[in-house]
């Protein structure tokens, strides 16, 4: 039997046909994000079981001593069958972890799936720990991040050098003209040191990481088929998050946040332009792996190029996620995520 088929049936956000991974699902009994959120930390670093989906999403641009660029991903997804939580196997909270390391030549990826309620996976807000099996992220300001797969592993430390950034309107991130939204904040100011274990051996790396925290119950509209998401760190210290949600009518819904080097965040709706420049044949699909990204309000007009165009996440819900280089009006590096490419 194909385990993946099972997983596809299993995860509620994949159970519906419309939208990428069914993210356009109805909220049902689940709570729905409301404007003007009041975050409460450290509690909000933890899980929000009333909401259907949630993630703790770390991406990192790393570099070895010889200058080779690496990408690192650590993601913990929470997916609820019902808006509640309880101890034991009956807990309707399910967890899925994705971990990946991208080199210019190779892309290592692995996945874990677990049930809540028995201690195999979960998130504790204070002291912060998010885990699934042996994968851990511990600490928000200073932390440790580990994961392992059959052919790779990593163990890095994270050190936040700036404040949390609230995306959209103070952390209320609108995803469609119809008003679908999520709660969304980030920590884009991590400095990273640590070790990658790859088939060729252990590699000491340094670099930067970016944490995204997002939770919602129906973040996409039914007419949205997928998204292209950018997190870019420019050499001058400024950063930019931007995404483009593709709609069935061919139009896009875009949103961006400009993050000044001091951590001041400015949201932009419908100001971002992201245009594919070239596509690569990835896992039998045409996936754009070079982009022109423009935010005229901030004078941004850059080319975003995948370091490894084959950074395909061959997981239960497949998507593209990998490190990129940035050239043009601003130079830098970042991460690109693309979903919904059939």
């Amino acid at each position, binding site marked *: *039997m194909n385990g993946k088929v099972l997983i596809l049936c299993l995860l509620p956000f994949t159970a519906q046909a419309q939208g990428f991974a069914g993210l356009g699902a109805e909220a049902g009994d689940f709570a729905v994000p409301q404007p003007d959120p009041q975050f409460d930390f450290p509690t909000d670093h933890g899980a929000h079981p009333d909401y259907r989906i949630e993630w703790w999403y770390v991406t990192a641009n790393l570099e070895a001593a010889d200058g080779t660029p690496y990408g690192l991903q650590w993601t913990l997804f929470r997916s609820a069958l019902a808006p509640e939580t309880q101890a034991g196997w009956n807990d309707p909270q399910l967890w899925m972890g994705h971990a990946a390391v991208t080199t210019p030549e190779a892309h290592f990826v692995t996945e874990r799936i677990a049930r809540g309620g028995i201690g195999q996976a979960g998130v504790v807000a204070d002291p912060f720990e998010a885990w699934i099996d042996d994968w851990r992220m511990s600490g928000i300001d200073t932390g440790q991040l580990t994961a392992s*797969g059959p052919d790779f*592993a990593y163990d890095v430390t994270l050190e936040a050098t700036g404040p949390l950034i609230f995306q959209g309107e103070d952390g209320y991130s609108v995803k469609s003209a119809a008003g679908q939204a999520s709660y969304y904040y980030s920590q884009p100011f991590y400095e990273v040191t640590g070790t990658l274990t790859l088939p060729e051996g252990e590699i000491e790396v340094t670099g930067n990481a970016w944490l995204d925290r997002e939770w919602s119950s129906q973040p996409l509209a039914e007419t949205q088929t997928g998204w292209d998401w950018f997190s870019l760190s420019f050499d001058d210290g400024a950063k930019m998050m931007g995404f483009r949600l593709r709609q069935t009518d061919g139009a896009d819904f875009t949103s961006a946040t400009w993050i000044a080097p001091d951590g001041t965040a400015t949201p932009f709706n419908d100001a971002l332009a992201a245009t594919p420049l070239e596509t690569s044949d990835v896992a039998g699909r045409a996936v754009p792996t070079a982009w022109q990204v423009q935010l005229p309000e901030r004078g941004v007009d850059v080319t975003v190029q995948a370091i490894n165009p084959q950074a395909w996440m061959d997981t239960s819900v497949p998507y593209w996620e990998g490190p990129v280089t940035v050239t043009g009006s601003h130079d830098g590096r970042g991460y690109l995520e693309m979903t919904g490419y059939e």
Partner: protein
Amino acid sequence: MTRATLQALLSHWIRNPLQLFTLLAGLALATALWSGVQAINAEAAASYDAAAATLGEGTYDQIVARDGGSIPQETYVALRRAGWLVSPVVEGRLSGVRIVGLDPLTAPGGLGPVDPVDTDIAAFLSGAGQIFGQAEVLAGLAELDAQRIEAPDVAPGTAITDIGLAQGLLGLDGQVTRMIVSPEQPLGRPDLAQVAPDVTVQAAQAGSDLGRLTDSFHLNLTAFGLLSFAVGIFIVNGAIGLAFEQRRPVVRTLRALGLPLRRLMALMALELTAMALIAGTLGVALGYVIASLLLPDVAATLGGLYGQSVSGTLQLRPAWWLSGLAVALLGTGLAAAAAFWRLARMPLLASGQRRALTVVAGRAAWVQGAVALVLLAVAGLLALTANGLVAGFALLGTLLIGAALALPLILDRVLALAEGAARSLRAQWFWADTRQQLPGLSLALAALLLAMAANVGVSTMVSSFRLTFSGFLDQRLASELYVTAEDEAQAEALVAFAAPRTRAILPIQSAEAQVRDLPTEVLGARIGPTYVDNWTFLASVPDPWARIAEGSGVAINEQLSRRTGLDLGDAVQLQGRSFTVAGIYGDYGNPIGQAILTEPVFAGLYPQVTPLQFGLRLDLEDVAALRAALTREVGISEGNLIDQAGIKQFSLDVFDRTFMVTTALNVLTLAVAGFAILMSLLTLAALRLPQLAPAWAMGMTRRSLGVVELVRAVMLAVFTAVVALPLGLALAWALLAVVNVAAFGWKLPMFLFPADYARLGLFALGAAALAALWPAWRLARTPPADLLKVFSNER
């Protein structure tokens, strides 16, 4: 022309409906036996696949508790959090159903045989839950809240559900029975002992022991099926041969009219193919009936002997009904080959005269004798050296075929001797005529020989087995009452209550171990008169129980001894301590190894095992009173009290049901052999008129000719039976001493059952006489005109 030819050919069957019936019935019967056995095998194989898919024992390594008990769920979580990709399984029995609880998110095989596409996983994981199983299993779980979903591919007797639900149903909250180890593990995970010292990895059972055991059983069934098919083909061969002989004049006429030989052959082949398909279809249908009648017994057999669950209901699987049809066609082809060959070589203007077959003589007989001798020599060699299942079955094959080939030659010699010794003319004629008839009957007689030998062999094996088994039960079930406590507290109360009321209390406690890589159950025995007096060893050092009691010795079962080569005086390692083998005992029906230690030593090695089961020694007449008292005073439930007589009866019932299949197949093969004799005699009857007519002309009455026919058939059956008896005993010996050892790991003593053989011989004679009765009666009623015709000009 084609149409006219077909009409001419088919008119033969209209004029001889009995022949048509013989042909169709023989072929259908042969196909039925073959496809019935195939159906049973296919059903069992599908059940095993389902079981393997449920459990993954054959595919994946397993983690089990060192003490054989359950594992705390925390150990599972600790292993996952250390990077071990394992999946928990909880297993137990509820209302006679094996409940398997899985975690579909981590199980490498997912939900096993449950089709995930039809599954609402959210419902499976949460709420009242779902249970998957076959209809009869679900019917037994009707009182549960969970949604019950029929899943035909789930192993019989098994229900699959979520681990959380299963824990609750089985009263195993917070515990797992074992864990499946994923084949792919991440880098850098620590040693198992570092994370969970109380568990151990059990390697995937490549080609499991159970598989080998059941293979042997199915090999037995297949051999029976083939034997029956061979016997059936004898019948068909007879019928076809007869039809071709009788149609010689038609063939000559048709060809003289200008019909090309090629077209004639094609039409006859078409005719036979049509018949083969009709008979094959009938046979498959009949096979389905046979299989569905026998399957419950086969299921009981496998369940009782090997603990394998096989579905008691039959499904139509293309594999066996297609093979049934193919075999019918193939068999017809085989049976008709000789007839076609003769037809093709028949000169165009050869007379339409029918020829009876002549005495076995010359080169052909010499070759047949040589082949038989070689086969029997090979069998003899194998008997001395055979070691393993394949060699065992090769031994059976060479023995049976060699004997079947030798039979006509032996009978011919015997008849020749009798002929030489005969005084009267009539006796001389009788013997000579019998000899002359032998080639026509030899196939049928060979069928009878095989059927009888198989009967003798199998019934000797089964009866020897039963005798040994019941003796073994007496030895192993010495206690008068067996009690199982629900927990340690109840066990203590039970011991306290029963101690003053019984002669002895024998705890039954065991732990799992590996001895030289063989899974072994270690027992802790309270050594006393029960063991010393009742226990018989296959081999032992002097005073074995004293050695075991003092702590230096261990008793092991025959399986452990044979599979690992352990012998008396050898050292056995258990939990790091060394014990000397003091005795080897027979342990029939147990697929794994077993070792017995004295109770104090066992308690030292496996301190975590506390006995919950006890054998109580007391006077038989006090059993009922104690049963009642235990229920009343200690709160032991009725289901946890089993008296010795009950267990023995149950075990013997299982055993007897087991071999009902064998008995049924025995009767069927004998019936088929009888049918073969009938058909051969009918075939010969028509051909033999030219030989009988002179005897009639010289004064023998038709009645005495008929009596002679009858006597002849019975006498030939007697001769065949005389040959069949030693052959059957050789077969039994091969089954007990070679096949059994290879398949099961134990050797059974062979006992002889002369009364059974005598009865069987009478049956065989009865069958032969019955088969000969009608041809003899027909002969006695042959119109004199027919006999006169023999002397007419036409011949």
